[in-house]
C-alpha cells in the first residue's frame, strides 16, 4: 500500500502545496490591492465548473477556462469610459456566481458536488488532483521567478514601466492569470468561497510582520503552509470541515499578527487617509 493511499496524507500534501501557492501569489495580491479581484475570480470560475460537470469534462479545465474569460472581461470592461477596475470586478463576481446558480438550479441531483465546490473537501483529493496542484505550483513559481522584477516594476510604478517600454497590459494579464490559475488549483481543497482566505490571509499577515519584500515571500509561505496543515489536522481530529478550518487559521494568524503589531506600536494610519500636506523637515525624519 502506497503512502499516498492514505486520505490524510494526500490531504496534507495538497494543503502544503496550496499553502505555498497562496503565500507566494498572495504577496502580489496584497501589494497590488487585489483581494476583491481574487474574491471575484473564485466566484467567476463557478459557472465554468458547473458547465464542466454538466458536460462531463474535467472540472479544473472548466473552471480554468471560464476564469480566464472572467479575467479578460474585467480587463476589457475596466478600460471603458467612466469605469474602474473595482466596478468591473463587482459585476464579474455577482454575474459569475449568479450564472452558476442558474445553471445548477436548472439541474436535478447536483447539490452534493455543489457543496464540495463551494466550501471544498481537501480530504477528498485524489492523487491526480495532487499532480495537477503540484504542476500548477511549479509553473506559477517558475513564471513568478522569471518575471519577478518586471511584475514588481509594473506593480509599483505603471507609468515608469511603460516609460521603459515594458508591455504593461501583457504583464497585468500575466499576473491576473497567475492568480486565476492559483484560485482554480486551490478550489478543490478550500472551495470557491474560502480559497480567498489562503490567497489573502498569509500574505496580509506577512505584511504586518515585515516591510521587506524579500522576507514577505518566505513568511507568507510559512504562514500559508502552517495554516493549511493545522486546518487539515484539526479537521481529522475533530471531524470538522477542513476548508473552513484552514480559513479560520488564516484569520487567526492575521488577528495575532495584528495584535502583535498594535502592541509594538507599529500601526500606520489607514491607507485611505492622505499623508499630511505639511512637508516634514528631513532632519526630523532621520
Amino acid at each position: 500500500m502506497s503512502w499516498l493511499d492514505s486520505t490524510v496524507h494526500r490531504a496534507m500534501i495538497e494543503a502544503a502545496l496550496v499553502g505555498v501557492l497562496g503565500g507566494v501569489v498572495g504577496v502580489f495580491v496584497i501589494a497590488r490591492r487585489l483581494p476583491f479581484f481574487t474574491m471575484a475570480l473564485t466566484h467567476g470560475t463557478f459557472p465554468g465548473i458547473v458547465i464542466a460537470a454538466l458536460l462531463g469534462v474535467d472540472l479544473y479545465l472548466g473552471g480554468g477556462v471560464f476564469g480566464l474569460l472572467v479575467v479578460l472581461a474585467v480587463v476589457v470592461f475596466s478600460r471603458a469610459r467612466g469605469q474602474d477596475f473595482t466596478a468591473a470586478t463587482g459585476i464579474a463576481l455577482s454575474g459569475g456566481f449568479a450564472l452558476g446558480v442558474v445553471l445548477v438550479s436548472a439541474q436535478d441531483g447536483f447539490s452534493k458536488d455543489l457543496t464540495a465546490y463551494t466550501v471544498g473537501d481537501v480530504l477528498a483529493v485524489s492523487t491526480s488532483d495532487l499532480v495537477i496542484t503540484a504542476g500548477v505550483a511549479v509553473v506559477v513559481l517558475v513564471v513568478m521567478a522569471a518575471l519577478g522584477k518586471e511584475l514588481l516594476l509594473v506593480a509599483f510604478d505603471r507609468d515608469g514601466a511603460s516609460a521603459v517600454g515594458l508591455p504593461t497590459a501583457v504583464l497585468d494579464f500575466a499576473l491576473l492569470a497567475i492568480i486565476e490559475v492559483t484560485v482554480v488549483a486551490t478550489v478543490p481543497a478550500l472551495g470557491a468561497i474560502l480559497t480567498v482566505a489562503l490567497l489573502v490571509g498569509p500574505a496580509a499577515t506577512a505584511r504586518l510582520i515585515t516591510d521587506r519584500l524579500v522576507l514577505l515571500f518566505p513568511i507568507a509561505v510559512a504562514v500559508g503552509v502552517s495554516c493549511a496543515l493545522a486546518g487539515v489536522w484539526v479537521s481529522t481530529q475533530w471531524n470538522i470541515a477542513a476548508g473552513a478550518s484552514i480559513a479560520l487559521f488564516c484569520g487567526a494568524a492575521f488577528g495575532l499578527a495584528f495584535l502583535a503589531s498594535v502592541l509594538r506600536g507599529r500601526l500606520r494610519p489607514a491607507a485611505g487617509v492622505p499623508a499630511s500636506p505639511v512637508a516634514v523637515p528631513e532632519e526630523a525624519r532621520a
Partner: protein
Amino acid sequence: MTQQQDRTAALVLEKASVAYGHVPVLEELHGTVHSGEAVALIGPNGAGKSTLIKAVLGLVPTVRGRIEVLGVTPAQARRDVAYVPQADTLDPDFPVSVEQVVMMGRYRKIGWLRRPSATDRALAAEALERVGLSDRARNRFGTLSGGQRQRVLLARAIAAQPRLLLLDEPFNGVDAVSQHALLEAIAQLKQQGAAVVVSTHDLAIAHLACDEVCLLNRHQFGFGPTDEILTPERLRATYGGHALELRGDRVIVTQT
C-alpha cells in the same frame, strides 16, 4: 553659433501636435534641446506639460509634425531616456526598499530573465550616493519624506545612465534640503552631457536650473533662452487671466 550647431540635438520638436484619440492636447510645438542643456516646461495646470513628457516617451502619439529623440523616434529611444514621475503618485504602502526602487532604473539594461549583476549594484549605489541618500538604502520607500522620495526616483533615473532625462513636476511640495539635492544632481547630469526636460511651475527654479524655457498652454507661447522667454508679456499670454502684474516689469502667477 557654430558651437551650437556642433552640439547633438537630444530632443527635436518639429511643428509637433499631440493628441489623445481625436482630442488634440498640444499643437504646433517647435524647438530643440541639445545635450548638456536643460529646458523648463512652464504653464498652468492642464496646459499639457505631462502630455508632452508622455509624447517624448512615445506613450502618447504625435499626430502631426515630428518628435525626434536622440536622432530616432521616441519609442526607439526609450533605452537612453529616463523618466522621473511625481513621487506622490506612487503607493507609499508598497513593500519596496529604497535600494530596490533605484535598481529598477537598471531593469531595462539588465533585460528579461536576468538578475542584477555586480555592476548594476554598483551603479545603483552610486546613483543613490549622488542624491545623498545612501544611508536610507534599506528603508522602505514609503517611510521617506516626499522630497526624499523624489530624490530616490531621480537616483533611479541616474542609475539608468540616460542621455535624456524627463522630470514631471519634481519640485512640488519638496523641502529646501531636497530641492537643493535635486538641483545639484540635475546640474551634474547636465555636465556629463545629458539633456534634461523638467516641468515646473516655479519660475525661480526655471531660472536657476534651466538654460531654456518652453512656455506651454495647449500651444507654445515661446521656446528659447530663459531670460528672453520669461517676460511679463509672454507669461501673461500663457497664463491668461491668472497672471498679475507687479510693479510694471514683474509678473505673479496666481494659478499654477
